[in-house]
């Protein structure tokens, strides 16, 4: 019986998720639709044909990202936040494709993820390379298992200076698993960027950390941010918006 108790204890400790640190507030200008599979955020007017699937970090409640991602919806693009069993997206790789196939009104699809959700996004692209126009990482380092160095699309990798879970060193050490690297010193560089082939744009968020990519408090083992959550998330939204716009043109 002893191993069973240890197993139960591990399940108990290892299966707790992070709850959003803010209650759900529905913005007046955003259409909010929630099913058991996704949370859809779309603009009430002037919607584009571009959609972004966002995969939450492991054991992070998906509603922790709505406040941030509705800002992307305000730019005209539709965002689908994936909902998965046990809040572990890596267990349900095919769900992103299921959503993409369900909404045929969108012509251009991007996939993004935070933390382990980014690894899941990498796995999705690895399995379905022609389904997405771009991949976006928020505090993620790629894994060799889903090597994308030969993928013929662009990637945006946003990482934070004080990220204790996807450190700057880990980002640097795993660049070989994504298309060729280009490090940005300012997000404004994207506006005039001209590249010859598939490129990974790297941008370090000075003063940011891992937890502030979402709204769920301070994650265990993370570093301490020296910028506010609002500042970090504004940078993330600005970067994603610029990346999609640049990639589409």
């Amino acid at each position: 019986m002893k191993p069973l108790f240890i197993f139960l204890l591990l399940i108990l400790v290892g299966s707790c998720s992070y709850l959003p640190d803010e209650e759900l507030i529905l913005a007046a200008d955003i259409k909010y639709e929630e099913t058991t599979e996704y949370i859809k955020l779309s603009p009430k007017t002037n919607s584009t044909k571009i959609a972004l699937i966002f995969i939450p970090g492991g054991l992070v409640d998906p509603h922790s990202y709505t406040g941030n991602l509705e800002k992307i919806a305000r730019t005209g693009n539709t965002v689908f936040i994936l909902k998965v069993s046990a809040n572990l997206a890596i267990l349900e790789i095919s769900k992103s494709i299921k959503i993409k196939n369900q909404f045929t009104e969108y012509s251009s699809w991007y996939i993004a993820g935070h933390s382990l959700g980014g690894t899941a996004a990498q796995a999705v692209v690895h399995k379905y390379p022609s389904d997405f126009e771009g991949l976006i990482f928020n505090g993620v380092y790629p894994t060799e298992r889903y090597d994308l160095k030969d993928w013929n699309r662009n990637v945006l990798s946003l990482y934070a200076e004080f990220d204790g879970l996807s450190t700057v060193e880990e980002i640097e050490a795993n660049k070989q698993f994504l298309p060729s690297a280009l490090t940005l010193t300012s997000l404004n560089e994207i506006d005039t960027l001209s590249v010859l082939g598939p490129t990974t744009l790297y941008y370090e968020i000075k003063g940011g950390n891992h937890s502030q990519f979402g709204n769920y408090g301070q994650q265990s083992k993370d570093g301490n941010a020296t910028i506010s959550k609002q500042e970090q998330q504004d940078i993330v939204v600005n970067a994603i918006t610029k990346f999609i716009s640049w990639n589409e043109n």
Partner: protein
Amino acid sequence: MQSQNLSVGMKTRNQLRVIFILVFTLSTLFGLGQKVEVKANYLQGFHYTSNWDLFKGGSELMINYRYPVKDFIVNTGVSFRTIQWGNQLSISTGITKSFFGDRTEFGAEIQNGIALFYEKPLYSLSLGVKASYLFIKKEKLTLGVSGEIRFTGCPRYKNYSLIYSVWEIPLGLFIRF
């Protein structure tokens, strides 16, 4: 300071909840001369909050301790499952009675649980009615299947999500020893 005290108080309450659940689990599994049931459920959802829809409700592992009370069998135990709000741990209490011979059982169950969130676990409640069929019934080992209709709600999750209650059909396979 006030918020610190509040935070310490919440943590203490949460620790007490966890200790209670663990002590309960221990007493369940170390009960002498009792029948233990281990059950795995697949939960097929068909309604959430105010929408009818077929969806994958999750998976569940239950460990129950069964004992007779008059003509009934009372069961108490713990269950761990995946659900719309992540993972959930519950204490279950139920009652069953055999009908049409000794291989068919009908019963009802209530589960008091917590949605597993760091620092702020949320209370959840399940109510269900179930039917079981025992296809192997021996003195030391019983195998069977079960079907159930169950409601589960997590009222405070309403503050974070539009989906905070579900109706499901748990389909189970169990072993008793």
